């Protein structure tokens, strides 16, 4: 077994989290990892650092990272880090890690995060526990990653005792996001210079396109429309906006092209877990209700009092959604209620 570039004796008592940005905010998974990292660091009295790579407008991102628990942020700025390319980011992260020698390095299992973590692990000659479903700290600062595999329901606990850093990736949504810290703590920003060469970047960013597809799995409120709303998703969109939520749909409106396939809720679409699901004009076929059964509260509006959706709903309104939804929008505009996420 090849030894890693630095071992346990040289490693510093720091957990480092890779901070991935999404426009002017940090990705939720990075914040989730900082929350978890804080917990793990406190168990052994270590520090928690965030690794931030980029070129512009880094300050607001640092503020967010400190709020959820980072003690320090390691920043590398370089024009080649303006947008993610796996070559530049791997090289920069590698240089920062070799400079600071953290004991643990965590990364979100996003497309870019996975790309980065794999290459980085090879470059550092260390192990990588990918797609962990839990992280635990053992005595002596040994990180144990829980990995589930299918086939007999294997649950593997993986550790990397000899090599440093101990690396793990975690999918978004695995760890809860803790409320921001209120107490004042020391906040250190360390700029670490990195050398990058344009020649090593073989990826050319042609165009950055931000997908308009919404992630309804993350939304606290989902307003779902069925055949019965006759394509009036504009109404549902207004309602969803007022409630801070997203619009979803059953299969028939998706089939008839009234709304994007990404918003289909159900067995072959999205399974969501909102606080509130408002289901308008959907009869409640089983293959659809599978997609909302984890909602805390389901409110159904349907003209047919016999519709099976009422068996799934916590609250039922017998009536035409096309009349009730506008009235609801009106009432909400007057009272300005909103459900907040978190």
């Amino acid at each position, binding site marked *: 077994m090849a030894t890693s570039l630095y071992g346990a004796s040289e490693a510093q008592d720091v957990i480092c989290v890779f901070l991935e940005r999404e426009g002017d905010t940090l990705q939720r998974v990075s914040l989730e990892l900082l929350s978890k990292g804080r917990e793990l660091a406190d168990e052994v009295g270590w520090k928690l650092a965030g690794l931030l790579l980029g070129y512009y407008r880094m300050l607001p991102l640092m503020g967010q990272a400190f709020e959820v628990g980072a003690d320090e942020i390691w920043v590398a700025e370089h024009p080649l880090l303006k947008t993610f390319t796996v070559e530049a980011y791997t090289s920069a992260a590698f240089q920062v890690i070799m400079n600071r020698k953290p004991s643990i390095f965590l990364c979100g299992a996003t497309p870019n995060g996975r790309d980065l973590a794999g290459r980085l692990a090879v470059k550092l000659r260390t192990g990588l526990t990918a797609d962990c479903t839990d992280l635990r700290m053992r005595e002596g600062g040994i990180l144990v990653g829980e990995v589930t595999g*299918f*086939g007999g329901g294997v649950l593997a606990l993986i550790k990397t005792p000899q090599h440093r850093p101990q690396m793990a990736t975690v999918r978004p949504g695995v760890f809860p996001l803790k409320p921001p810290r209120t107490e004042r703590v020391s906040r250190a920003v360390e700029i670490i210079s990195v050398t990058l060469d344009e020649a090593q970047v073989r990826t050319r960013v042609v165009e950055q396109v931000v997908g308009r597809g919404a992630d309804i799995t993350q939304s606290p409120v989902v307003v779902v429309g069925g055949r019965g709303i006759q394509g009036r998703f504009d109404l549902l969109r207004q309602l969803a906006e007022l409630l801070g939520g997203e619009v979803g749909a059953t299969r028939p409106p998706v089939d008839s092209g009234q709304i994007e396939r990404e918003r289909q809720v159900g*067995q072959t679409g999205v399974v969501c877990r909102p606080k509130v699901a408002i289901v308008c004009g959907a009869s409640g*076929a*089983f293959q659809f209700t599978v997609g909302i059964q984890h909602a805390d509260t389901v409110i159904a509006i349907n003209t047919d009092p016999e519709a099976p959706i009422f*068996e799934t709903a916590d609250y039922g309104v017998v009536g035409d959604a096309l009349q009730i939804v506008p009235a609801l929008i009106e009432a909400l505009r007057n009272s300005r209620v909103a459900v907040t996420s978190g």
Partner: protein
Amino acid sequence: MTQVEHLTVDDARWDTLFERTRGAVALCYQCGVCTALCPWGQVREGKPLSVRSLLRRAQLGVPDDHEDIWLCTACAQCESLCPRGVPVAEVFQSLRGMAWEERRVPKGLPSVLWSIYWNNNPWSQPPSHRSRWAKGLEVPRFDPSEHEVLYYVGCTAAYDRRAQKVARALVKLFQAAGVRFGTLGDEEPCCGDAAKSLGYTPYFEEIVQNAAQVFAQNGVRRLVATSPHCFDTFRNYAPRYQADFEAEHYTQFLDRCLSEGRLRFSREVPLRVTFHDPCFLGRRNDEYEAPRRILDAIPGLERVEMARSRQDALCCGGGGGRMWMETSAGERFANLRVQDALATGVQVLVTACPFCIACFEESVKAVGAPNLRVMDVAELAAMAIE
């Protein structure tokens, strides 16, 4: 034709496939009957599912990461006329199995298997709700000293509210025929059809062995299943794992109750109906007559045949794990099947499988045929008893 510049032949891959299909892939001599018969050709104009070329690629050990391997509904239309007797659906399952190993699986499918693992059903439903379908009915817990048969409800009939009506109708029929039956309640094991169809063979084997064990512990010697899929699994696969029980589909059981005079239909059901053969009952288990005999015994009921029926029945599209995958609106076999039924001018499209019911009811709406009802044989039969 697909433009292929070069193919990488992988002997190890071929060896694995040969072993897993017990040599069956080798039988294919590329006549192409399978491709011609495959229903995908009817919904994908100019772009049929080339079963033949997939088999050829499999024989050469050419890796297939194409979505095509996930299309097969296991309807056995191709198998029914294959001159070499290639078990095509099993080859597809083996190819899917390799895709699992290489982690090239469509989104959403791992959670189906995880659901079986955690919830004992592929529908992400709570295990403790499994016997709720029977609320208000007298359904005793199976006791081998009292009961002649175990009623195996199955996951879909236990949880899908539409299919629950079929299970409730069956209880009514069993009671009317004086059948001494019981169920395993919340402890009823999943049959594993989803795991098998999706190609995760090692887990399927575990599920079916577990089921056989549960049946043995409970002294089950005979069971009657609601779904042809569970029935097929128990009849054709469980015996490979030392299972010691007999499985029947409920249509076969009711048909016998009728011929033995235990069950009698006294009420008129004046409806014009046509029967759709579920693939896993008809082509896969060669049972075409039992459901028809039941329907024909119902007074006042008129039964007509669709243009393609029995061995030639068109699949609903829900087999082979397709219930857990999305099929785009223009490519659903069930839409065509509903048209077949409409052409006969019937009031009711009857079938005997919960997957067929789900697909057809969706398509009746999609096609815009509000006057065509989709019913199960059991539901019609229950209407005919007092």
